[in-house]
Protein backbone atom coordinates (compact mmCIF):
# COMPACT_ATOMS: atom_id res chain seq x y z
CA UNK A 1 0.00 0.00 0.00
CA UNK A 2 1.23 3.43 -0.79
CA UNK A 3 2.98 4.68 2.37
CA UNK A 4 1.61 8.13 1.90
CA UNK A 5 -1.96 6.82 1.94
CA UNK A 6 -1.87 4.97 5.28
CA UNK A 7 0.05 7.83 6.76
CA UNK A 8 -2.60 10.24 5.67
CA UNK A 9 -5.45 8.54 7.51
CA UNK A 10 -3.55 8.41 10.78
CA UNK A 11 -2.28 11.86 9.97
CA UNK A 12 -5.82 13.12 9.51
CA UNK A 13 -6.81 12.05 12.99
CA UNK A 14 -3.61 13.34 14.54
CA UNK A 15 -3.81 16.65 12.78
CA UNK A 16 -7.42 17.36 13.59
CA UNK A 17 -6.93 16.13 17.15
CA UNK A 18 -4.08 18.55 17.60
CA UNK A 19 -6.04 21.41 16.07
CA UNK A 20 -9.00 20.75 18.31
CA UNK A 21 -6.80 20.72 21.40
CA UNK A 22 -5.20 23.99 20.43
CA UNK A 23 -8.57 25.50 19.61
CA UNK A 24 -9.87 24.40 23.01
CA UNK A 25 -6.93 26.05 24.73
CA UNK A 26 -7.73 29.32 23.02
CA UNK A 27 -11.48 29.24 23.27
CA UNK A 28 -12.01 28.03 26.85
CA UNK A 29 -10.51 31.05 28.65
CA UNK A 30 -12.61 33.35 26.48
CA UNK A 31 -15.69 31.36 27.34
CA UNK A 32 -14.82 31.44 31.02
CA UNK A 33 -14.37 35.19 30.83
CA UNK A 34 -17.64 35.60 28.98
CA UNK A 35 -19.45 33.50 31.53
CA UNK A 36 -18.08 35.57 34.39
CA UNK A 37 -18.89 38.78 32.56
CA UNK A 38 -22.41 38.04 31.51
CA UNK A 39 -23.75 35.79 34.21
CA UNK A 40 -24.31 37.18 37.66
CA UNK A 41 -23.53 33.89 39.37
CA UNK A 42 -20.05 33.45 40.83
CA UNK A 43 -18.31 30.34 39.59
CA UNK A 44 -18.18 29.14 43.14
CA UNK A 45 -21.95 28.92 43.26
CA UNK A 46 -22.43 27.50 39.80
CA UNK A 47 -24.32 24.24 39.74
CA UNK A 48 -26.05 22.30 37.02
CA UNK A 49 -29.32 23.97 37.99
CA UNK A 50 -28.40 27.59 37.62
CA UNK A 51 -26.26 27.33 34.50
CA UNK A 52 -28.80 29.30 32.53
CA UNK A 53 -29.83 31.66 35.27
CA UNK A 54 -29.16 35.35 35.49
CA UNK A 55 -27.55 36.04 32.14
CA UNK A 56 -27.64 39.60 30.91
CA UNK A 57 -25.60 42.00 28.87
CA UNK A 58 -26.53 44.93 31.07
CA UNK A 59 -23.01 45.06 32.44
CA UNK A 60 -21.62 45.60 28.97
CA UNK A 61 -24.21 48.22 28.10
CA UNK A 62 -23.52 50.16 31.29
CA UNK A 63 -19.81 50.03 30.59
CA UNK A 64 -20.26 51.22 27.02
CA UNK A 65 -22.28 54.21 28.16
CA UNK A 66 -19.82 55.22 30.86
CA UNK A 67 -18.49 58.66 29.90
CA UNK A 68 -14.93 57.95 31.01
CA UNK A 69 -14.86 54.78 28.97
CA UNK A 70 -16.18 56.56 25.92
CA UNK A 71 -13.76 59.48 26.26
CA UNK A 72 -10.78 57.25 26.84
CA UNK A 73 -11.83 55.12 23.86
CA UNK A 74 -11.72 58.17 21.67
CA UNK A 75 -8.36 59.16 23.15
CA UNK A 76 -6.99 55.70 22.40
CA UNK A 77 -8.38 55.91 18.90
CA UNK A 78 -6.63 59.21 18.20
CA UNK A 79 -3.40 57.97 19.74
CA UNK A 80 -3.58 54.99 17.40
CA UNK A 81 -4.26 57.22 14.41
CA UNK A 82 -1.30 59.47 15.17
CA UNK A 83 1.00 56.57 15.96
CA UNK A 84 0.10 54.94 12.66
CA UNK A 85 0.63 58.22 10.81
CA UNK A 86 3.98 58.74 12.48
CA UNK A 87 5.13 55.24 11.70
CA UNK A 88 4.04 55.48 8.09
CA UNK A 89 5.74 58.83 7.68
CA UNK A 90 8.95 57.37 9.01
CA UNK A 91 8.88 53.85 7.65
CA UNK A 92 7.12 53.94 4.29
CA UNK A 93 9.80 56.04 2.60
CA UNK A 94 12.47 53.98 4.30
CA UNK A 95 10.90 50.69 3.22
CA UNK A 96 10.52 51.88 -0.35
CA UNK A 97 14.08 53.10 -0.59
CA UNK A 98 15.42 49.91 0.95
CA UNK A 99 13.46 47.63 -1.32
CA UNK A 100 14.14 49.61 -4.45
CA UNK A 101 17.69 50.79 -4.01
CA UNK A 102 19.49 49.08 -1.17
CA UNK A 103 18.11 45.65 -0.39
CA UNK A 104 21.31 44.90 1.47
CA UNK A 105 20.11 47.16 4.21
CA UNK A 106 17.08 45.03 4.83
CA UNK A 107 18.39 42.67 7.56
CA UNK A 108 20.00 45.57 9.39
CA UNK A 109 16.83 47.61 9.26
CA UNK A 110 14.70 44.66 10.29
CA UNK A 111 16.89 44.15 13.32
CA UNK A 112 16.98 47.85 14.11
CA UNK A 113 13.21 48.11 14.14
CA UNK A 114 13.11 45.21 16.60
CA UNK A 115 15.32 47.01 19.11
CA UNK A 116 12.39 48.79 20.81
CA UNK A 117 11.19 45.43 22.12
CA UNK A 118 14.54 44.85 23.74
CA UNK A 119 14.08 47.75 26.13
CA UNK A 120 11.61 47.26 28.99
CA UNK A 121 8.82 49.83 28.82
CA UNK A 122 9.62 51.22 32.20
CA UNK A 123 13.21 51.93 31.20
CA UNK A 124 12.00 53.80 28.16
CA UNK A 125 9.54 55.77 30.26
CA UNK A 126 12.11 56.61 32.90
CA UNK A 127 14.69 57.61 30.33
CA UNK A 128 12.33 59.76 28.32
CA UNK A 129 10.72 61.26 31.40
CA UNK A 130 14.05 62.30 32.86
CA UNK A 131 15.11 64.16 29.77
CA UNK A 132 11.79 65.70 28.95
CA UNK A 133 10.94 66.71 32.47
CA UNK A 134 14.00 68.92 32.46
CA UNK A 135 13.85 70.19 28.91
CA UNK A 136 10.18 70.27 27.97
CA UNK A 137 7.83 69.45 30.85
CA UNK A 138 4.71 70.10 28.82
CA UNK A 139 5.51 67.10 26.68
CA UNK A 140 4.68 64.56 29.33
CA UNK A 141 1.54 66.39 30.41
CA UNK A 142 -0.57 65.59 27.41
CA UNK A 143 -2.04 62.16 26.78
CA UNK A 144 -1.11 62.36 23.11
CA UNK A 145 2.48 62.09 24.22
CA UNK A 146 2.02 58.35 24.25
CA UNK A 147 2.16 58.54 20.45
CA UNK A 148 5.95 58.30 20.06
CA UNK A 149 6.07 55.41 22.51
CA UNK A 150 3.38 53.49 20.69
CA UNK A 151 4.91 54.29 17.31
CA UNK A 152 8.16 52.87 18.62
CA UNK A 153 6.50 49.80 20.04
CA UNK A 154 4.64 49.16 16.81
CA UNK A 155 7.75 49.56 14.68
CA UNK A 156 8.82 45.91 14.66
CA UNK A 157 5.76 44.64 12.90
CA UNK A 158 4.96 47.79 10.94
CA UNK A 159 8.27 47.67 9.14
CA UNK A 160 7.99 43.98 8.43
CA UNK A 161 4.50 44.21 7.04
CA UNK A 162 5.42 47.15 4.81
CA UNK A 163 8.52 45.31 3.67
CA UNK A 164 6.61 42.13 2.95
CA UNK A 165 4.06 44.15 1.02
CA UNK A 166 6.73 45.74 -1.13
CA UNK A 167 8.38 42.44 -1.83
CA UNK A 168 5.13 40.84 -2.81
CA UNK A 169 4.37 43.44 -5.43
CA UNK A 170 7.90 43.30 -6.77
CA UNK A 171 8.36 46.93 -6.04
CA UNK A 172 11.79 47.03 -7.54
CA UNK A 173 10.61 45.90 -10.95
CA UNK A 174 7.63 48.19 -10.84
CA UNK A 175 9.83 51.10 -9.91
CA UNK A 176 12.39 50.55 -12.58
CA UNK A 177 9.74 49.93 -15.20
CA UNK A 178 7.90 53.08 -14.33
CA UNK A 179 11.03 55.16 -14.26
CA UNK A 180 12.16 53.62 -17.48
CA UNK A 181 8.86 54.67 -19.05
CA UNK A 182 9.63 58.23 -18.05
CA UNK A 183 7.58 58.65 -14.90
CA UNK A 184 8.78 61.19 -12.39
CA UNK A 185 9.73 60.10 -8.92
CA UNK A 186 6.59 61.67 -7.54
CA UNK A 187 4.41 59.73 -9.95
CA UNK A 188 6.10 56.45 -9.19
CA UNK A 189 5.67 56.79 -5.46
CA UNK A 190 2.17 58.10 -5.36
CA UNK A 191 0.61 56.51 -8.38
CA UNK A 192 2.40 53.21 -8.66
CA UNK A 193 3.86 52.05 -5.36
CA UNK A 194 1.58 53.46 -2.68
CA UNK A 195 -1.69 52.31 -4.23
CA UNK A 196 -0.28 48.80 -4.35
CA UNK A 197 0.85 49.01 -0.77
CA UNK A 198 -2.62 49.79 0.44
CA UNK A 199 -3.23 46.28 1.72
CA UNK A 200 0.02 46.13 3.64
CA UNK A 201 -0.55 49.57 5.10
CA UNK A 202 -4.02 48.67 6.25
CA UNK A 203 -2.64 45.50 7.83
CA UNK A 204 0.03 47.44 9.69
CA UNK A 205 -2.55 49.98 10.80
CA UNK A 206 -4.85 47.30 12.16
CA UNK A 207 -2.04 45.65 14.08
CA UNK A 208 -1.17 49.00 15.62
CA UNK A 209 -4.80 49.49 16.61
CA UNK A 210 -4.73 46.07 18.28
CA UNK A 211 -1.61 47.13 20.09
CA UNK A 212 -2.98 50.45 21.32
CA UNK A 213 -6.21 48.88 22.50
CA UNK A 214 -4.33 46.41 24.63
CA UNK A 215 -1.32 48.37 25.79
CA UNK A 216 -1.27 48.99 29.49
CA UNK A 217 2.34 49.35 30.62
CA UNK A 218 3.27 52.67 29.01
CA UNK A 219 -0.08 54.27 29.67
CA UNK A 220 -0.14 53.38 33.34
CA UNK A 221 3.51 54.26 33.91
CA UNK A 222 2.92 57.70 32.40
CA UNK A 223 -0.32 58.05 34.36
CA UNK A 224 -2.40 58.59 31.25
CA UNK A 225 -6.06 57.89 30.67
CA UNK A 226 -6.45 55.46 27.76
CA UNK A 227 -9.02 52.76 27.18
CA UNK A 228 -6.95 49.96 28.76
CA UNK A 229 -6.16 52.00 31.86
CA UNK A 230 -9.75 53.17 32.23
CA UNK A 231 -10.91 49.58 31.90
CA UNK A 232 -8.70 48.65 34.80
CA UNK A 233 -10.14 51.50 36.85
CA UNK A 234 -13.64 50.48 35.87
CA UNK A 235 -12.84 47.00 37.01
CA UNK A 236 -12.46 48.25 40.53
CA UNK A 237 -16.02 49.44 40.43
CA UNK A 238 -17.75 46.81 38.30
CA UNK A 239 -15.61 43.75 37.56
CA UNK A 240 -18.23 42.05 35.46
CA UNK A 241 -18.89 45.02 33.23
CA UNK A 242 -15.17 45.64 32.78
CA UNK A 243 -14.53 42.09 31.63
CA UNK A 244 -17.52 42.25 29.32
CA UNK A 245 -16.02 45.39 27.86
CA UNK A 246 -12.62 43.74 27.44
CA UNK A 247 -14.23 40.85 25.63
CA UNK A 248 -16.16 43.25 23.43
CA UNK A 249 -13.00 45.14 22.50
CA UNK A 250 -11.19 41.89 21.73
CA UNK A 251 -13.99 40.62 19.51
CA UNK A 252 -14.23 43.88 17.59
CA UNK A 253 -10.47 43.92 17.06
CA UNK A 254 -10.48 40.32 15.88
CA UNK A 255 -13.29 41.02 13.45
CA UNK A 256 -11.52 44.05 12.03
CA UNK A 257 -8.33 42.10 11.63
CA UNK A 258 -10.23 39.28 10.03
CA UNK A 259 -11.61 41.68 7.45
CA UNK A 260 -8.14 42.99 6.86
CA UNK A 261 -6.63 39.57 6.35
CA UNK A 262 -9.29 38.73 3.79
CA UNK A 263 -8.61 41.96 1.96
CA UNK A 264 -4.96 41.18 1.82
CA UNK A 265 -5.37 37.61 0.75
CA UNK A 266 -7.46 38.70 -2.13
CA UNK A 267 -4.69 40.98 -3.23
CA UNK A 268 -2.19 38.20 -3.01
CA UNK A 269 0.04 39.60 -0.31
CA UNK A 270 0.82 37.27 2.52
CA UNK A 271 1.48 38.82 5.86
CA UNK A 272 4.73 37.93 7.46
CA UNK A 273 4.49 39.91 10.61
CA UNK A 274 7.87 39.06 11.92
CA UNK A 275 8.88 37.01 8.96
CA UNK A 276 11.99 34.98 8.70
Amino acid sequence: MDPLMTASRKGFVLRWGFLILVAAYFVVPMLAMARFAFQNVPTALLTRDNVFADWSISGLLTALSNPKIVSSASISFWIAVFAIALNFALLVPLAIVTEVRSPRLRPALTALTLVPWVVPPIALVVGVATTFRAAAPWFLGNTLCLVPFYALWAMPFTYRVLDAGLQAINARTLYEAARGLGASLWTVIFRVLLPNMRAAMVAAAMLTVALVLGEYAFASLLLKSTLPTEMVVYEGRDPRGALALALFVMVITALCLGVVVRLIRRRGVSITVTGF
Partner: protein
Amino acid sequence: MRVLSRPESRLGILVSLPFAAFIGLFLIYPVTVVVIKALTPDGHLSADALSRALSGTYRRGFINSIELSLASAVLGGLIGVVLALVVATMSRPRWLHPALESWSAVASQLGGVPLAFAFIATIGTQGLVTRALAEMGLDLRDYGVTVTGFWGIVLVYLYFQIPLMFLVMTPAVQGLRQSWREAAAILGASPLRYWLSVGGPILAPSVLGGIILLFINSFTAYATVFVLNPGGALVPLQIRFLLQGNIITGEEDLGNAIVVWVIALLLLSLIIMTALQRRALKWIHS
Protein backbone atom coordinates in the same frame (compact mmCIF):
# COMPACT_ATOMS: atom_id res chain seq x y z
CA MET B 1 17.57 55.75 -19.11
CA ARG B 2 16.97 57.91 -16.10
CA VAL B 3 17.31 55.19 -13.53
CA LEU B 4 19.79 56.78 -11.21
CA SER B 5 19.46 60.49 -11.41
CA ARG B 6 20.59 62.87 -8.75
CA PRO B 7 17.42 63.12 -6.67
CA GLU B 8 17.47 59.40 -5.91
CA SER B 9 21.01 59.31 -4.74
CA ARG B 10 20.27 61.89 -2.08
CA LEU B 11 17.04 60.12 -1.33
CA GLY B 12 18.48 57.48 0.93
CA ILE B 13 19.99 59.98 3.30
CA LEU B 14 17.02 62.31 3.37
CA VAL B 15 14.63 59.48 4.02
CA SER B 16 16.64 58.04 6.84
CA LEU B 17 17.08 61.34 8.62
CA PRO B 18 13.63 61.66 10.22
CA PHE B 19 13.73 57.99 11.13
CA ALA B 20 17.17 58.34 12.68
CA ALA B 21 16.10 61.44 14.54
CA PHE B 22 13.05 59.70 15.95
CA ILE B 23 14.94 56.61 17.02
CA GLY B 24 17.69 58.77 18.42
CA LEU B 25 15.39 60.95 20.47
CA PHE B 26 12.99 58.34 21.78
CA LEU B 27 15.07 55.22 21.94
CA ILE B 28 18.82 55.72 21.81
CA TYR B 29 18.96 58.79 24.00
CA PRO B 30 16.68 57.54 26.82
CA VAL B 31 18.50 54.21 26.88
CA THR B 32 21.84 56.01 27.00
CA VAL B 33 20.58 58.10 29.91
CA VAL B 34 19.58 54.97 31.78
CA VAL B 35 22.88 53.24 31.01
CA ILE B 36 24.91 56.22 32.15
CA LYS B 37 22.93 56.46 35.35
CA ALA B 38 23.51 52.78 35.97
CA LEU B 39 27.22 53.15 35.47
CA THR B 40 27.51 56.18 37.71
CA PRO B 41 25.64 55.43 40.91
CA ASP B 42 25.95 58.26 43.39
CA GLY B 43 27.58 60.38 40.76
CA HIS B 44 30.85 58.61 40.08
CA LEU B 45 31.77 55.81 37.76
CA SER B 46 31.52 52.41 39.37
CA ALA B 47 30.30 48.92 38.71
CA ASP B 48 28.74 48.81 42.14
CA ALA B 49 25.12 49.12 41.06
CA LEU B 50 25.65 46.70 38.22
CA SER B 51 27.02 44.01 40.48
CA ARG B 52 24.33 44.55 43.09
CA ALA B 53 21.77 44.15 40.37
CA LEU B 54 22.86 40.57 39.92
CA SER B 55 22.94 39.56 43.55
CA GLY B 56 20.49 38.36 46.12
CA THR B 57 16.86 38.76 45.30
CA TYR B 58 17.60 40.33 41.94
CA ARG B 59 19.66 37.35 40.95
CA ARG B 60 16.64 35.27 41.81
CA GLY B 61 14.53 37.64 39.74
CA PHE B 62 16.75 37.16 36.71
CA ILE B 63 16.79 33.41 37.11
CA ASN B 64 13.02 33.31 37.49
CA SER B 65 12.45 35.55 34.51
CA ILE B 66 14.82 33.57 32.34
CA GLU B 67 13.22 30.30 33.38
CA LEU B 68 9.74 31.65 32.76
CA SER B 69 10.62 33.16 29.40
CA LEU B 70 12.51 30.05 28.28
CA ALA B 71 9.67 27.78 29.29
CA SER B 72 7.02 29.82 27.51
CA ALA B 73 9.31 30.37 24.51
CA VAL B 74 10.24 26.72 24.03
CA LEU B 75 6.75 25.39 24.70
CA GLY B 76 5.11 28.11 22.68
CA GLY B 77 7.69 27.67 19.97
CA LEU B 78 7.20 23.94 19.63
CA ILE B 79 3.43 24.14 19.66
CA GLY B 80 3.53 27.08 17.25
CA VAL B 81 5.78 25.24 14.81
CA VAL B 82 3.64 22.13 14.87
CA LEU B 83 0.57 24.28 14.36
CA ALA B 84 2.19 25.98 11.37
CA LEU B 85 3.22 22.63 9.93
CA VAL B 86 -0.17 21.06 10.46
CA VAL B 87 -2.01 23.96 8.91
CA ALA B 88 0.39 24.21 6.00
CA THR B 89 -0.26 20.62 5.00
CA MET B 90 -3.99 21.06 5.08
CA SER B 91 -5.44 22.74 2.06
CA ARG B 92 -8.98 22.13 3.26
CA PRO B 93 -11.03 23.59 4.79
CA ARG B 94 -10.17 26.70 2.90
CA TRP B 95 -11.13 29.09 5.66
CA LEU B 96 -8.73 27.51 8.11
CA HIS B 97 -5.57 29.31 7.20
CA PRO B 98 -7.02 32.85 6.92
CA ALA B 99 -9.03 32.40 10.10
CA LEU B 100 -5.97 31.23 11.98
CA GLU B 101 -3.87 34.05 10.65
CA SER B 102 -6.30 36.71 11.69
CA TRP B 103 -6.83 35.12 15.08
CA SER B 104 -3.07 34.89 15.55
CA ALA B 105 -2.63 38.53 14.70
CA VAL B 106 -5.06 39.50 17.46
CA ALA B 107 -3.93 36.93 19.98
CA SER B 108 -0.26 37.79 19.62
CA GLN B 109 -1.06 41.31 20.82
CA LEU B 110 -3.28 40.07 23.60
CA GLY B 111 -1.96 40.22 27.03
CA GLY B 112 -2.20 42.37 30.00
CA VAL B 113 -5.07 42.62 32.33
CA PRO B 114 -7.94 41.01 30.38
CA LEU B 115 -5.86 37.94 29.61
CA ALA B 116 -4.90 37.57 33.25
CA PHE B 117 -8.52 37.70 34.23
CA ALA B 118 -9.58 35.29 31.54
CA PHE B 119 -7.20 32.76 33.04
CA ILE B 120 -8.21 33.52 36.60
CA ALA B 121 -11.73 32.78 35.47
CA THR B 122 -10.48 29.53 33.95
CA ILE B 123 -7.85 28.01 36.20
CA GLY B 124 -8.02 30.26 39.24
CA THR B 125 -9.21 28.82 42.52
CA GLN B 126 -12.76 29.50 41.41
CA GLY B 127 -12.08 28.93 37.75
CA LEU B 128 -14.41 27.04 35.48
CA VAL B 129 -11.86 24.42 34.54
CA THR B 130 -10.64 24.06 38.11
CA ARG B 131 -14.12 23.37 39.31
CA ALA B 132 -14.96 21.09 36.43
CA LEU B 133 -11.85 19.07 37.14
CA ALA B 134 -12.63 19.09 40.85
CA GLU B 135 -15.95 17.47 40.08
CA MET B 136 -14.02 14.73 38.36
CA GLY B 137 -11.73 14.37 41.32
CA LEU B 138 -8.68 16.20 39.97
CA ASP B 139 -7.23 18.99 42.03
CA LEU B 140 -5.04 21.18 39.85
CA ARG B 141 -3.11 22.36 42.86
CA ASP B 142 -1.73 18.87 43.38
CA TYR B 143 -0.06 19.19 40.04
CA GLY B 144 1.42 22.53 40.90
CA VAL B 145 -0.78 24.37 38.45
CA THR B 146 -2.08 27.47 40.11
CA VAL B 147 -2.82 30.53 38.09
CA THR B 148 -0.34 32.57 40.10
CA GLY B 149 2.40 29.96 40.16
CA PHE B 150 5.15 29.33 37.64
CA TRP B 151 3.35 26.89 35.36
CA GLY B 152 0.16 28.84 35.60
CA ILE B 153 1.86 31.96 34.32
CA VAL B 154 3.59 29.94 31.58
CA LEU B 155 0.16 28.71 30.56
CA VAL B 156 -1.08 32.29 30.35
CA TYR B 157 1.93 33.45 28.35
CA LEU B 158 1.41 30.65 25.84
CA TYR B 159 -1.75 32.44 24.82
CA PHE B 160 0.22 35.06 22.93
CA GLN B 161 3.41 33.08 22.38
CA ILE B 162 1.83 30.36 20.28
CA PRO B 163 0.16 32.77 17.83
CA LEU B 164 3.36 34.76 17.53
CA MET B 165 5.35 31.65 16.68
CA PHE B 166 2.66 30.59 14.23
CA LEU B 167 2.89 33.93 12.45
CA VAL B 168 6.66 33.74 12.35
CA MET B 169 6.88 30.16 11.15
CA THR B 170 4.20 30.18 8.49
CA PRO B 171 6.39 31.67 5.76
CA ALA B 172 9.29 29.40 6.73
CA VAL B 173 7.09 26.34 6.67
CA GLN B 174 5.69 27.33 3.32
CA GLY B 175 9.25 27.30 2.07
CA LEU B 176 9.40 23.63 2.86
CA ARG B 177 8.35 22.20 -0.42
CA GLN B 178 5.86 19.41 -0.55
CA SER B 179 7.83 18.04 -3.47
CA TRP B 180 10.79 17.38 -1.21
CA ARG B 181 8.56 15.36 1.08
CA GLU B 182 7.33 13.30 -1.81
CA ALA B 183 10.79 12.85 -3.24
CA ALA B 184 12.04 11.61 0.09
CA ALA B 185 9.16 9.17 0.36
CA ILE B 186 9.85 7.85 -3.12
CA LEU B 187 13.49 7.38 -2.28
CA GLY B 188 12.35 5.22 0.61
CA ALA B 189 12.85 7.56 3.54
CA SER B 190 10.47 7.18 6.44
CA PRO B 191 8.77 10.34 7.67
CA LEU B 192 11.12 10.32 10.65
CA ARG B 193 14.14 10.15 8.40
CA TYR B 194 12.75 12.96 6.34
CA TRP B 195 12.42 15.18 9.33
CA LEU B 196 15.82 14.29 10.66
CA SER B 197 17.74 14.88 7.48
CA VAL B 198 15.73 17.35 5.44
CA GLY B 199 12.88 19.15 7.15
CA GLY B 200 14.55 19.56 10.50
CA PRO B 201 17.79 21.14 9.39
CA ILE B 202 16.01 23.48 7.03
CA LEU B 203 13.54 24.68 9.60
CA ALA B 204 15.98 24.70 12.49
CA PRO B 205 17.33 28.25 12.10
CA SER B 206 13.84 29.66 11.75
CA VAL B 207 12.58 27.69 14.72
CA LEU B 208 15.47 28.73 16.91
CA GLY B 209 15.11 32.31 15.79
CA GLY B 210 11.41 32.20 16.51
CA ILE B 211 12.01 30.82 19.98
CA ILE B 212 14.44 33.62 20.69
CA LEU B 213 11.87 36.15 19.53
CA LEU B 214 9.36 34.59 21.91
CA PHE B 215 11.94 34.74 24.66
CA ILE B 216 12.46 38.46 24.12
CA ASN B 217 8.73 38.99 23.91
CA SER B 218 7.96 37.33 27.20
CA PHE B 219 10.93 38.63 29.18
CA THR B 220 9.66 42.18 29.37
CA ALA B 221 5.97 41.32 29.63
CA TYR B 222 4.62 43.25 32.56
CA ALA B 223 0.89 43.81 32.83
CA THR B 224 -0.20 40.18 32.98
CA VAL B 225 2.13 39.10 35.72
CA PHE B 226 1.42 42.31 37.61
CA VAL B 227 -2.16 41.17 38.04
CA LEU B 228 -1.36 37.60 38.94
CA ASN B 229 1.59 37.96 41.25
CA PRO B 230 2.41 41.61 41.89
CA GLY B 231 5.05 40.96 44.50
CA GLY B 232 6.76 38.15 42.65
CA ALA B 233 10.47 37.91 42.00
CA LEU B 234 10.48 38.67 38.30
CA VAL B 235 12.61 41.25 36.58
CA PRO B 236 9.90 43.53 35.13
CA LEU B 237 8.16 43.67 38.51
CA GLN B 238 11.40 44.40 40.29
CA ILE B 239 12.25 47.16 37.88
CA ARG B 240 8.85 48.74 38.37
CA PHE B 241 9.20 48.42 42.10
CA LEU B 242 12.57 50.11 42.21
CA LEU B 243 11.92 52.81 39.68
CA GLN B 244 8.31 53.59 40.34
CA GLY B 245 6.47 51.61 42.99
CA ASN B 246 8.21 51.72 46.27
CA ILE B 247 10.14 54.77 47.21
CA ILE B 248 13.30 53.43 48.69
CA THR B 249 15.27 56.49 47.88
CA GLY B 250 18.64 55.93 46.35
CA GLU B 251 17.72 52.61 44.84
CA GLU B 252 17.03 54.08 41.43
CA ASP B 253 20.57 53.31 40.41
CA LEU B 254 19.87 49.70 41.15
CA GLY B 255 16.78 49.82 39.00
CA ASN B 256 18.77 51.35 36.16
CA ALA B 257 21.44 48.71 36.56
CA ILE B 258 18.88 45.93 36.25
CA VAL B 259 17.59 47.57 33.09
CA VAL B 260 21.10 47.63 31.66
CA TRP B 261 21.50 43.91 32.24
CA VAL B 262 18.11 43.25 30.66
CA ILE B 263 19.00 45.25 27.58
CA ALA B 264 22.35 43.48 27.33
CA LEU B 265 20.72 40.07 27.59
CA LEU B 266 18.01 40.84 25.08
CA LEU B 267 20.35 42.58 22.64
CA LEU B 268 22.51 39.49 22.66
CA SER B 269 19.44 37.41 21.90
CA LEU B 270 18.51 39.79 19.11
CA ILE B 271 21.94 39.48 17.52
CA ILE B 272 21.80 35.69 17.63
CA MET B 273 18.33 35.83 16.14
CA THR B 274 19.43 38.07 13.28
CA ALA B 275 22.32 35.75 12.48
CA LEU B 276 19.93 32.82 12.40
CA GLN B 277 17.61 34.83 10.18
CA ARG B 278 20.27 35.23 7.55
CA ARG B 279 20.75 31.49 7.40
CA ALA B 280 17.04 30.87 7.20
CA LEU B 281 16.53 33.37 4.39
CA LYS B 282 18.33 31.06 2.00
CA TRP B 283 15.58 28.50 2.16
CA ILE B 284 12.64 30.82 1.99
CA HIS B 285 13.53 32.86 -1.00
CA SER B 286 14.95 30.04 -3.10
